[in-house]
């Protein structure tokens, strides 16, 4: 009886959409209860719940994505929507343009150089190094750039996700240790290093931090697309 319903149901779009939304509503409630504690990250918690569920029930990722792709799809329009708070905060952005540009250059360079260097020192294969190099960029940029240079899009996706989740979980503690309080800096660096997940986290805290995170994500995405080919070439020339 159950199987008659269950097996065809897991192949419909409704399954992936319902599972994602139900799990998200649950973890979003937990995040709110924790007053948006950085360690109670909705994305990480959802993955920890959904992956075992799919493995246990024997539903493939492809079947899950039949519905879940519609939720992913919204990332496109949401990225475009970042222009709205950006246009509203233009005055503040213009005032802080020099610190923003300096922070962008420093943060972007360190993000790409250090990940290539550490991965190489730890004996990672070239494919992994190339796939990790753009890890702080937004997902489509990172996947496109690493694939063009001989990396793997799926490995790049793992690197990007890991960076985003780790970044938003630790940002508060990093800023506390180095005593940074300005919302402009916190937001901008959150988006620069933790891309879209950082932006989502930023809007969880305040519109202001979310806006600067959106700016950091966009500018770093553009810069990374040009930096990564240079750094990867340099790496192969030197080693």
């Amino acid at each position: 009886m159950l199987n008659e319903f269950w097996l065809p149901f897991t192949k419909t779009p409704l399954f992936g959409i319902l599972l994602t939304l139900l799990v998200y509503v649950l973890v979003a409630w937990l995040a709110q209860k924790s007053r948006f504690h950085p360690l109670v990250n909705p994305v990480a918690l959802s993955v920890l719940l959904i992956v075992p569920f799919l493995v246990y029930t024997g539903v493939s990722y492809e079947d899950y994505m039949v519905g879940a792709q519609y939720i992913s799809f919204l990332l496109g329009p949401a990225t475009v929507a970042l222009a709205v708070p950006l246009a509203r905060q233009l005055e503040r952005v213009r005032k802080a343009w020099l610190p923003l540009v300096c922070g962008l250059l420093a943060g972007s360079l360190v993000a790409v150089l250090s990940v290539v260097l550490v991965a190489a020192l730890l004996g990672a294969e070239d494919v992994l190094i190339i796939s990790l190099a753009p890890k702080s960029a937004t997902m489509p940029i990172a996947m496109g750039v690493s694939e063009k240079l001989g990396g793997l899009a799926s490995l790049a996706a793992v690197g990007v996700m890991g960076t985003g989740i780790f970044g938003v979980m630790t940002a508060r503690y990093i800023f506390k240790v180095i005593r940074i309080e300005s919302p402009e800096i916190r937001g901008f660096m959150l988006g620069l290093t933790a891309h879209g997940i950082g932006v989502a986290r930023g809007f969880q805290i305040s519109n202001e931090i979310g806006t600067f995170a959106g700016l950091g994500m966009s500018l770093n995405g553009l810069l990374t697309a040009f930096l990564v080919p240079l750094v990867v070439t340099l790496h192969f020339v030197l080693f």
Partner: protein
Amino acid sequence: MLLTLAILCFFQALGEWVSVLSGLPIPGPVLGMVFLFITLLLKPGLNHHIAAASEQLLKSMMVMFIPVCVGIMTSYTLLKGQWLALVVAIVISTVLAMAVGALVMHKVMKHLEKQAHNQKKAVSDVE
């Protein structure tokens, strides 16, 4: 809500189109954001129509990352024996980038503030 979604999708499509045409490694949605930003500067009245729903969409951004992240379940075999390198590289690089970038911004901001302060002082000294 639907008007906003239509406008956002239109700008995304415009971005995708320019991305393909130009061959730049920049994804369509990011270009679409740039185009919408320019449009909002030229036509500030548009802001009023799309502000509320856009904000709603941005507040729900977390949920949109879940499906791709669940995809980690398909690529863990690719990493055979390289998990340590992956995790350590991400941890060190993320902390370094965030800290160095933030400190550089902080230094430049402080420098500008000091400059502005000195200028003000110089002006009042002259007076």
